[in-house]
């Protein structure tokens, strides 16, 4: 910029402002720190027991040492570790298949119409339910088991699907059925976020097919792949109830996983130091995977999800031709049909009388009716539903009340950088900590406090367990607020409340995601309630568990209980799925 007067020319050069506009250290009021206090107290519910477990694991008769880890030399423990590692491979496989499915639904948009709801339903039901469903499908008698019936009809005989070795197929199917919906939805959102000009440019250069996937989609989806892999690997290492319900007793030894091994060791009154050591090993595996996964997200500074910008409708991709659409429609329909099939089996089995369901498969036409529901109701299903509702609602409410201010504090509360990093690190570690790490000391403490069996205590533990993930998710949602908006709010007269109001308005998807996921998680929970409070307080799972002891002859009541238990989470997930995915990927635009 310059001034010209009377032949005199004045150059005015602006100097960039470096440093703060106001000198001195920023004033850090102590007030906001109080926002984190409830979260700190709640986290202590987990942190202290984890500390106790670690100390127990390393304490030996003569002081501290690795003596307890000799338990890993035990062949059964080694076998369990091996199986847990196999489960991690299963998780990677699921991610791969999910990626391909997402790519398919991206290239053939019509697929999505059918695929989306079909994929969400399994994610909403508990793993116990999906295990029960697949055990029904793979039942070894040709009268009851769908797959056995089909292969007997086709080949004259059938392998014993639940038999040695083959039960893995049933386990993996149930796991994949549950998780693929989540994987596909997240990948799909990531694919949608790839700017169309990039796609067009790379297509114009003649890069197609597999080369295009490698050059374009895989690198651009790396962060979201990190999130998905992390979630799945943790789910795979935590596998517990699935094995219990699917694998017949005589083979549970060969299906043993670390979590299960730990549980058997504690229930058979094993040495507490050794069981603690097992828990620490399990934790070490999960933490290692977690840290590797999070490293990929490092650039996002612990921001779990990736930012996804909704595509501008004016720049939408060209509509595929009619043939392609028809083709996509057909494939989507077929995949959706296959995917919805287990749910159909479950509902159809539940609609048979207990006798008929025990004798024949879901396709039989005799004995239809609601008597299986009646039988399930007789063992206290509805009272269990009510209890579960209370626990899930309480846990969700507590979680939201505590997680929102905490996430706000971490995102915008002006925490010193290092403290913020430590806090986030702790939350990441807590988010991946398996329940076995804190179950034993925690339940002892609850017993001592005379709260054994109290559902309030259980709801608090659930809230504490859900807190790390909720804070991570909300924090990244809060943190991705456009700075202009936030600074505007910060300069306003009512600073924090204004920010909170903005945040609330803008980041509702993340809040909804946290609430819906926590509610569904607690509703479907088996392992936390089972390990913390014993089998009595996880009412819904308890009914399923009790019925599943004599699996095939109880097929009808088991299926009925499973259907009733699944209605609430399925409706919840189906209604909020889009918002949940947006919340998970912080996909809202301000």
């Amino acid at each position: 910029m310059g001034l010209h007067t009377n032949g005199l020319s004045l150059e005015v050069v602006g100097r960039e402002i470096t440093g703060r506009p106001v000198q001195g250290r920023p004033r850090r009021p102590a007030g906001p720190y109080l926002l984190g206090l409830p979260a700190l107290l709640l986290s202590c519910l987990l942190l202290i027991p984890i500390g106790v477990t670690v100390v127990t694991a390393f304490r030996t008769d003569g002081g501290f040492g690795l003596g307890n880890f000799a338990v890993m030399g035990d062949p059964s423990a080694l076998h369990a570790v091996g199986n847990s590692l196999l489960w991690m491979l299963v998780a990677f496989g699921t991610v791969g298949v999910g990626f391909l499915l997402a790519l398919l639904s991206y290239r053939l948009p019509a697929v999505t119409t059918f695929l989306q709801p079909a994929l969400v339903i399994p994610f909403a039901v508990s793993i116990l339910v999906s295990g029960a469903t697949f055990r029904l499908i793979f039942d070894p008698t040709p009268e009851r088991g769908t797959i056995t019936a089909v292969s007997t009809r086709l080949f004259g005989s059938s392998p014993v699907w639940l038999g040695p070795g083959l039960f893995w197929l049933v386990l993996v199917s149930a796991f994949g059925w549950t998780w693929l919906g989540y994987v596909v939805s997240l990948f799909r959102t990531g694919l949608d976020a790839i700017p169309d000009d990039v796609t067009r440019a790379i297509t114009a250069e003649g890069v197609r097919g597999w080369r295009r996937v490698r050059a374009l989609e895989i690198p651009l989806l790396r962060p979201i792949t990190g999130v998905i892999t992390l979630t799945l690997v943790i789910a795979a290492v935590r596998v517990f109830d699935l094995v219990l319900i699917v694998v017949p007793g005589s083979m549970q030894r060969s299906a043993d996983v670390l979590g299960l091994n730990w549980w058997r060791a504690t229930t058979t009154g094993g040495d507490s130091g050794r069981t603690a050591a097992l828990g620490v090993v399990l934790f070490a595996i999960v933490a290692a995977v977690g840290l590797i996964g999070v490293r990929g997200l490092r650039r996002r500074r612990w921001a779990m999800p990736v930012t996804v910008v909704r595509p501008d409708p004016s720049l939408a991709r060209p509509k595929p031709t009619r043939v392609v659409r028809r083709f996509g429609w057909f494939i989507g329909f077929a995949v959706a049909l296959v995917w919805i099939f287990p749910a159909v089996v479950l509902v159809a089995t539940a609609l048979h009388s207990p006798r008929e369901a025990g004798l024949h498969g879901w396709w039989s036409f005799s004995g239809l009716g609601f008597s299986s529901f009646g039988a399930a109701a007789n063992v206290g299903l509805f009272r269990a539903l009510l209890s579960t509702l209370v626990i899930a609602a309480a846990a969700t409410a507590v979680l939201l009340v505590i997680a929102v201010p905490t996430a706000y504090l971490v995102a915008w509360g002006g925490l010193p950088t290092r403290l913020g990093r430590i806090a986030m690190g702790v939350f990441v570690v807590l988010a991946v900590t398996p329940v076995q790490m804190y179950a034993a000391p925690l339940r002892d403490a609850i017993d001592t406090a005379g709260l054994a069996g109290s559902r309030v205590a259980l709801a608090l533990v659930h809230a504490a367990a859900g807190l790390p993930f909720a804070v991570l998710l909300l924090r990244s949602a809060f943190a991705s607020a456009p700075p202009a908006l936030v600074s505007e709010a910060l300069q306003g007269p009512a600073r924090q409340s204004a920010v909170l109001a903005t945040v609330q308005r803008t980041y509702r998807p993340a809040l909804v995601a946290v609430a819906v996921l926590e509610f569904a998680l607690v509703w479907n929970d088996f392992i936390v309630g089972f390990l913390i409070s014993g089998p009595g307080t996880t009412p819904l799972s308890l009914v399923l568990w009790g019925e599943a002891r004599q699996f095939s002859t109880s097929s009808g009541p088991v299926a009925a209980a499973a259907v009733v238990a699944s209605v609430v989470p399925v409706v919840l997930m189906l209604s909020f799925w889009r918002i949940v995915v947006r919340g998970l990927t912080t996909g809202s635009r301000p």
Partner: protein
Amino acid sequence: MPSSRRVFLGAAATLLLTGCSSDVLGLRRAVRVAVSWSGEELRVFHKVLDGLGALDYPVEVVPLGDDISTAFGARSTRRPDIVMLPQPGLVPRHLADLEPVPDDIAQLGRARLWKELLVHEGTTYGVPFKTAHKSAVWYRPSVFRQAGVEPPRLWSEWLTLNQTLTKAGVTPLSLAAGDGWVLTDFLENILLGIAPSVYAGLATATDPRPSQHPEVAAALRLLGTMWSAPGVLAGGVKESLVQQFPDALVEVFGHRRAAMVLASDFAEPVVRSFAADPDDIGLFTFPPMTAGAAAPVVVGGDVMVLPKPTTEDARDLVRRLSAPTAADPWIAEGGFLVDGRTSGYSPELTRLAEQLTKPGEQLRFDLSDQLGRIGDINGLWRVLTDFLIAVGRPGAVVPDAVGDAMAELRKVEES
């Protein structure tokens, strides 16, 4: 309409209030009853509880299945107030964890057989709720008629019978190898039949070493001979391994793929509800092993014990459950024997009840329960499952499998 909205809100509030009653919240101390039953048995037990009338306290039933013995382990969670222990043999091992039963019902625990397990130094630590006859074989008479055979009166006759049936194109046995206790029951019957004194010795030993008794190996050999016969097991060993106890019953009576199944009296409701032909149900008791020897009768049952510390409510519930008429709803459903009672059952169960009360029978409590760790899911159950797999392999040599099983048993004893 404001009024209907008010009604709705009122109803919602009421629902919420009842929902949050202390009962649902788990704040009120319910009497927790740990049981091993599931499915139909669990439902009938709920009926029994309902039949007790109004109680001053809520009752919560906790189905623990095969892990019931953990109910009073040192690190148990939410210790139950009453345990319906399906392994009465565990009582002597847990005396320190148990309260004596109230004096007014203590005499129930002093009945024949039960006394040696439940009474210690004059104090009674449990009362029987349910007796189980574990030496019963359920079969389909129509198949036996077709093949022209009679229920066996000797072990050797049973082996011949199996051969006859196999030749006639009928699979003789269905085996629920998915449940380990079914396998141990089989072995116990044979051992009790060939060497009652060894059985008794093992049952009462403080440090039992079954692998040091050649009689155990002999029993295993006999068992292996039966199981390894070609075509004797429905679906072969592979399918047997995935069958739970009721599945094996459905194989025989529902799908009619086998002729008989070794199953206790409590199989009755499953047999009756899944039988394709309700009149085609027969029962024989485990035959004597040699001519002149007494037939083995392995007894089990569910015994009510009170883990420490107990409450007045729990004592009250035990008292009510041990009343003579308490189990009537279950007896009406079938598959329930009351200790010492021989009437009011179906004809099949009446025969079993009579055998249980007849003097001079070779009655013994389930052995595996009394072996502690050696007899449980990681001990004998596992050893026998592996044994079954071994003898089921084509070209299997039974004595080798017996040798392996005994070696495995020794390992369990030493660990």
